[in-house]
């Protein structure tokens, strides 16, 4: 009797340890979750109707079949499984393998720039607006946050605060706020003011808090992001309060022989944004390979060692913060003057987190990764709204986004296109040598 039980237990243990059985469960489970996600919704009064409608319904058989099919493909012992795995690996590493060649790289960049310039001319006004408001701004924000998180390895959860500061200073200097500036400038000339104010804010916030350890810095920046939103809501006499600020003028240039006004059309804003993105990409790329960039890498990989070689860690951290803030400030200025209206509800903590997600999804520390990650993750939901997939409802967008994030991190935690250095760091950390990011900066403890 006990022998029977023993063999049963060991058989169960064998099953549990058997990789293929586990994979089967995982595939089927995943597909059932997908069935639930694409199924009907429940409500307060009928909470199980969503479950019964999705799972106790003939359609669940389709998903079960898909689950088994997926498992079969992944487990396939013969050529096809291998071929699929090898191709997917090849595709994922394609950019990194061809990029090292400098001529190839410049060619690719030139083509990409050409596409970026020509593409918007061939799409309708809606997609042009998506390119500016929903994709372009986020690409710029991702590039900026990449400097903070990717280069310097600082976990910033309140990045949107600088965006808000840029937007409100634009409103201030163009005279749209209840309080009036010493001199009213055109929105275009408010750009340096917005950037400078954001940078100043970055320095002021960074100075006392950047000494803190990685996780604590996360909280403090999170708190600061919330504080900015609360202050904007409460100071009704200064910021217009919860009702926001309406009537921020569009930018225009009236200099020498150049007269140009931006109006409602999204296309001119796109080109202004593109110019700044290209500038930022070039500048940050140089920065990455300069002394400053090397200092950041040293700080990221081992702060104590960096300090002991004479690098002023705090100064470089504040520099990263300020540079990231400046990018965010410009983005704030652009949106404020394009939409002509800002309100505190635009600057939520969720937005800060979203930008962090974009950077890490794209690949930390890599400019190309930040750009592509932001572009893909921001484009996809708007594409789905216009061309809904089977069973997709607008309300359920975040369910899909969340699932994609989890799956991405499981299969490719370094992001879509990580920088080579990061990839090496991650590889080393997988073998137990050092850590790959800022979250375990235990060496910076003070007391």
């Amino acid at each position, binding site marked *: 009797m006990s022998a029977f039980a023993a063999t049963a237990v060991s058989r169960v243990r064998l099953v549990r340890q058997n990789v293929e059985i586990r994979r089967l469960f995982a595939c089927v489970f995943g597909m059932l979750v997908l069935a639930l996600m694409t199924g009907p919704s429940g409500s307060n009064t009928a909470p199980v109707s969503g479950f019964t409608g999705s799972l106790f319904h003939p359609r669940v058989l389709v998903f079960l079949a898909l689950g088994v099919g997926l498992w079969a493909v992944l487990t396939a012992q013969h050529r096809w499984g291998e071929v699929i795995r090898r191709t997917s690996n090849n595709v994922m590493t394609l950019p990194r393998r*061809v990029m090292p060649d400098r001529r190839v790289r410049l060619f690719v960049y030139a083509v990409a720039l050409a596409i970026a310039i020509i593409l918007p001319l061939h799409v309708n006004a809606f997609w042009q607006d998506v390119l500016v408001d929903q994709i372009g701004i986020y690409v710029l924000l991702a590039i900026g946050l990449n400097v903070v998180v990717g280069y310097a390895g600082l976990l910033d959860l309140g990045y949107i605060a600088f965006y808000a500061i840029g937007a409100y200073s634009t409103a201030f200097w163009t005279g749209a706020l209840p309080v009036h500036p010493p001199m009213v400038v055109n929105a275009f000339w408010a750009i340096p003011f917005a950037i400078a104010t954001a940078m100043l804010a970055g320095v002021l916030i960074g100075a006392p808090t950047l000494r803190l350890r990685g996780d604590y810095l996360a909280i403090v920046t999170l708190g600061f992001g919330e504080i900015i*939103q609360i202050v904007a809501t*409460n100071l009704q006499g200064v910021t217009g309060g*919860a009702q926001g600020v309406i009537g921020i003028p569009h930018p225009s240039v009236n200099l020498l022989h150049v007269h140009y006004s931006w109006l*409602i059309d999204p296309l001119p804003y796109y080109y202004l944004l593109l110019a700044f993105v290209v500038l930022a990409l070039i500048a940050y790329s140089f920065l990455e390979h300069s002394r400053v960039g090397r200092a950041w890498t040293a700080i990221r990989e081992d702060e104590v060692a960096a300090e002991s070689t004479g690098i002023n860690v705090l100064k470089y951290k504040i520099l990263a913060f300020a540079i990231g803030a400046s990018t965010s400030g410009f983005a704030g200025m652009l949106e404020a003057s394009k*939409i*002509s*209206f800002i309100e505190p509800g*635009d600057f939520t903590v969720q937005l800060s987190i979203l930008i962090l997600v974009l950077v890490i999804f794209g690949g930390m520390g890599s400019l190309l990764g930040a750009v592509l990650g932001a572009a893909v993750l921001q484009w996809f939901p708007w594409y789905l709204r216009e061309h809904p997939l089977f069973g997709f409802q607008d309300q359920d967008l975040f369910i899909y986004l969340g699932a994609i994030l989890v799956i991405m991190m499981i299969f490719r935690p370094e992001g879509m296109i990580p920088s080579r250095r990061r990839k090496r760091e991650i590889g080393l950390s997988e073998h137990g040598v050092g850590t790959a990011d800022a979250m375990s900066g235990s060496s910076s403890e003070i007391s």
Partner: protein
Amino acid sequence: MHRKIIRIGVPLVAVALTLGTFGGVATASTSHSSDPTYTIAYEGPLSGGNAQLGLNMKYAVELAIRWANQGKTFGKLPFKLQYTEQDDQGSATQSPTAAEALVTNSSVVAVVGPAFSGATKAAEPIFSAADLATVSPSATNPQLADEGWNNFFRVVADDNAQGPYDADYIAKALKLKSIYTVDDASSYGSGLVGALDTRLTHDGVKFTHQTAPGTTQCQAGTGNVQEYGALASQVVSSKAPLLFYGGYYCDFALFAKALRAAGYKGQLMSDDGSLDPHYVSEATAGIANNTLVTCACAALQKNVEDNSFGTAFKQLAGFASGTYTPEAFDATNVIISVMKSIGPHVTRAAIVKALHKTTYLGITKTIKFEKNGNVSGKTIYVYKVEKGKIVELGSTLSLIKSS
């Protein structure tokens, strides 16, 4: 070198072709029958923390279109109507893009929405440039009417109408000398209570004002529910005979519960954001009873509960009609009514012109627009929760006269 260029070139071309799908925007297809087909769009929050309010309105618009197509509301129409929606999450950052989507959709002839005032402020310049009529069921910020947008209409009275009328009611009908006012720090609540407070001073009523930011239990606020307990203690010790809350039903329900639990015995009062049966169900009937709620909408009970509208809505949406549902229904119907008067060939500009001239009897009020898009007639009605149901007491002016 050649191989490398090919290995990059092919994927790049593939990418470019995929991106070419940018150009393919789904437009509503016109039906192949002889009747022209037009689309009425709804823009509002369908996801995110403000989703419930948006869903309240969305199904009302759908129901109105359905009934119109069936001939129930206007008899036989010389065209077919379709419904489309855009989710702006109630946010001023998403609404311009949502607006562009509707503007570039050539089948859309009018828009019900945007639902939120902030989203409207951001999106209206785009709608205005395209002369696309937007009839909002819920955007109450007074500034919206001052921006000179010819295509902007709303079927709700703005905050500057409701606030002062509520104040007059408190001062002259209830004859109170000092009250407590709280707003939820939202654009809606703070605007309304601000107008209320100003009028209270004018009427000689003293008030203590506090802001309690909306909580995560309600409209995607970031406020903390725990704060209601402490605030309730303060209200109790202030011994104010009435508390006016500017905000939405879900937060008001929690606040009401906290107030009663802290021992507050005074009168509870709120605005049309609380005119929702969920207020009663969430605060529980015992606490909700005798609450006063004001609204710029008439005879709601009679039209919504006893009429087939209420049941049909519940069947379509899966939940009962709530805040702004009747307004959205009216907004859609006023558009359809002017479309019918224009005839089988409707254009956006014609709708805008016709809306400026129309008078339409809706289920919430008689709808006639002033030049700036505000709905004319600022009658505010007072409702009371009795035995778990919301009943109308009368208009503020008539109640003041009879007191």
